[in-house]
């Protein structure tokens, strides 16, 4: 038969075909290396959306955020609506607990709705927090910021509630919205709404 096209050993591939395959293997190898480095580089990330501003609900986002940071996670907490109160330097020290609609409280709703009851239940809770060596909200904000947690205050809610950037703790990120929060959630391994 014709010997014009030099065949490879065993008469399999032509030199051109072999070169093409080698190129293809090289491409695949570099693509694989790229994917591998992407997977390795993706550091762990958690995003929490904090929406509540009562004394009891201020704790979970801050405790989880600071703990995740200790586990080496990159953490963002996006505070929106009443969650903003947690970052408000003055208001965060006066967060309240409501006994109304809370069946875990030792008073029935009709009593809980009386004037002054929120103040009383809040004082009870604050005493319990102090008695059990639980950190204050202020302390948790401090350690969170120190551990590199990005505490963000939703700009739309700042405007809505008539707050000023200066009202928030030093180190709090302002000027952020739903899109930036969503973008961070896309990259995160854990996303929580609290």
């Amino acid at each position: 038969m014709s010997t014009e096209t030099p065949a490879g050993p065993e008469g399999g591939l032509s030199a051109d075909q072999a070169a093409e395959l080698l190129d293809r293997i090289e491409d695949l190898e570099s693509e694989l290396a790229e994917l591998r480095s992407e997977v390795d580089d993706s550091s762990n990330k958690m995003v929490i959306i904090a929406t509540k501003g009562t004394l009891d609900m201020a704790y979970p986002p801050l405790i989880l955020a600071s703990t995740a940071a200790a586990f080496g996670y990159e953490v963002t907490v996006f505070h929106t609506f009443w969650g903003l109160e947690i970052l408000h330097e003055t208001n965060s020290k006066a967060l309240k607990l409501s006994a109304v609609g809370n069946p875990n409280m030792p008073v029935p709703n009709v009593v809980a709705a009386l004037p002054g009851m929120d103040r009383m239940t809040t004082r009870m809770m604050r005493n319990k927090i102090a008695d059990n060596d639980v950190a204050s909200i202020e302390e948790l904000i401090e350690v969170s910021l120190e551990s590199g947690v990005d505490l963000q205050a939703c700009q739309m809610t700042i405007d809505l509630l008539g707050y000023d950037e200066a009202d928030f703790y030093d180190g709090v990120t302002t000027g952020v919205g739903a899109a930036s929060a969503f973008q961070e959630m896309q990259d995160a391994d854990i996303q929580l709404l609290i």
Partner: protein
Amino acid sequence: MSMDVTETLDVKGQNCPMPVIKTKGAFESLAAGETLEVVATDSGSMSDIAGWAESTEGAELVEQQETTDNGDDVYKHYVTKTD
């Protein structure tokens, strides 16, 4: 049991999540081969610090002890930096 402790972190009187967060902070300043002793009164620190060490590269939980100090329960943790 005697342990070659480089540094001691006292988190007595502090509750969750502080023992873990402070442990992480003190652990970072260790050099390879050094051991941190963490002294806590939070009973939850037993599982919390164990979980933290398991998930943290270079941290090895060598030992945990439950003791009492003047009638208070005290939990001691020994974490070594392996690299």
